[in-house]
């Protein structure tokens, strides 16, 4: 077991190394740099050259790469070129906000999709299953920005039931938390839940075709017990994997939701920083996203392995 975890971690570390190089390569290939951005329309050749020199952007790529990796190894992502402030200081609060949003979304979408996935599995082939399926497919088929935009217009502007902006500073009580986070979370959780419940349903149905499920039916075991006691323990590995995958694909929607609700999170920071060519911030954000994904899937893999290895260790 310990060996398996070590192996999995080593594999993830390799992936991470690849990601690190890729991220650096792409950011290095971006046309223009922060000097251009800072000077904007007033950039002259000599002004940008001088600024570039002052910022150390004129050093060869490998030197910058080495310095960056060295810094990251010491948990020091460097300074933002745009603002001159430490990247950690810039990213920190945003990371917190993003985690908060992600946690809230996961807290909604994981239980909902588990219940939906289970319900659809047990009622597969029925009208209920079909309606839920159609609904879920419909949800993933409409761009998130449209869902979010329509939701804000309807609920904030027309009915005044929720604020148009997710103002995190306005949160002082659990009720306010719900009020502020309701719409962003719903917009985000929609597509995630749809995807997740479909995947969970697929995993469970896979398990349901096993002979021991038939055996349980023939033993006269109640359907709820079959699902919870017989199917779930065997599906847990793939279900956890499905959850990890869906949660990580949530990031696409995060950019949109952060923009539409003006929520200060990581994705928006990264998009801004790409635009501003604030490379240290971009790299830091991208790395955090990748690490989040990799650790999520690694964790899922380990959970999956642990669940299938139960009893087999002896």
């Amino acid at each position, binding site marked *: 077991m310990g060996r398996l975890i070590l192996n999995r971690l080593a*594999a*993830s570390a*390799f*992936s*991470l190394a*690849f*990601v690190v190089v*890729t*991220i650096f390569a*792409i*950011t290095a*290939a*971006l*046309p223009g740099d922060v000097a251009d951005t800072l000077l904007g329309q007033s950039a002259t050749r000599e002004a940008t050259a001088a600024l570039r020199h002052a910022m150390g952007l004129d050093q060869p790529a490998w030197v910058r790469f080495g310095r960056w990796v060295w810094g990251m190894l010491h948990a020091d992502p460097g300074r933002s070129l745009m603002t001159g402030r430490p990247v950690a200081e810039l990213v920190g609060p945003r990371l917190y906000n993003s985690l908060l949003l992600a946690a809230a979304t996961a807290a909604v979408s994981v239980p909902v999709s588990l219940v939906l996935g289970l319900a659809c599995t047990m009622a*597969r*082939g029925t009208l209920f299953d079909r309606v839920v*399926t*159609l609904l879920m*497919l*419909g949800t*993933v*088929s*409409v*761009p*998130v*920005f*449209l869902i979010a*935009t*329509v939701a804000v*217009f309807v609920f904030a502007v027309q009915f005044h039931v929720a604020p148009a902006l997710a103002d995190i500073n306005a949160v002082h009580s659990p009720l306010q938390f719900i009020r502020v986070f309701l719409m962003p979370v719903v917009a985000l959780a929609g597509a995630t839940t749809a995807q997740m419940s*479909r995947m969970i349903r*697929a995993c469970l*149905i896979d398990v349901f075709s096993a002979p021991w499920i038939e055996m349980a039916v023939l033993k006269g075991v109640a359907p709820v017990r079959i699902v919870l006691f017989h199917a779930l323990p065997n599906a847990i590995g793939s279900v956890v994997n499905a959850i990890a995958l869906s949660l*990580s*694909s949530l*990031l*696409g929607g995060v*950019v*949109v939701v952060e*923009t539409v609700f003006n929520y200060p999170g990581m*994705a928006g920071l*990264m*998009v801004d920083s*790409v635009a501003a060519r604030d490379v240290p911030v*971009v790299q830091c954000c*991208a790395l955090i*996203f*990748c690490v989040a*994904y*990799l650790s999520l*899937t690694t964790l899922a893999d380990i959970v999956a392995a642990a669940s299938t290895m139960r009893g087999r260790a002896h």
Partner: protein
Amino acid sequence: MGMSLAGAARRGAAFAARLAPGPRRALALLAFWFVIAIVGPLLAPHAPGEIVDRDVFAGFSARHWLGTDYLGRDLGSRLLWAVRYTVLICTLSTLLSCGFGIMLGIAATAMSVWVERVLGRLMDGLLSIPSLLFALLVIAAAGESVPALILTMGVIYMPGSYRTSRALALRIAQADYVMAALARGEGRIFVILREILPNMTGPLLSDIGLRFVYAVLLLSNLSFLGLGVQPPLVDLGSLVRENVLGMVYGAPAVVVPTIVLALLTVGLNFALDRQRP
């Protein structure tokens, strides 16, 4: 020529007949959208960039069936072009991602364990970069053009296709007929192309279909970041995005493209989904 065409059609029909109902329905749907993509723009009454009315976000009317867009252009005409570009880009990027993904996925089963592991890790790494941000970065680096879009989306969806096809191929590679071919001394290419690939077509087509749907959605979400086809042409997502303000007036300019987009994705998704019990 006619003969061979007829032969190809017959072979195609025979191929489709052998497929499971899911992929078959999906293929039929795709064919329908392809026809729209090819024929549609020829039927468009106006050029995609032509301003036909001073009224923006106009509703349904006899002159402009689907109303006008945010600049006062004919929405129907733009919609027909949008379908063409969405279908074109998504098809090509799907072919690209699945082509490479499938080839690598199958090849991985024939390669040494280490190569396969490294490949798997690289794919994992690629998968870990959020797709929207990856697209943003790459398009920022490579410039906004249809080939860049296709290439980027191709890269984004390659790891998924790799994973699926590798899992499928791994199962098939253990089949005895593959062993039999190897025992006969067939070359690797032959084994991959003739022994393994034909037996993956059903599930692979489903996978390709799903990836096409993902591509459509990614493309429409990319429009949120302002990326897409060069104006005056447009893809479906950008069509929705550029007219999103019309929502407050309930303008067809935002409603109709959304419905078309949903029809495209939900239809395909549903067709493919139904095959699973």
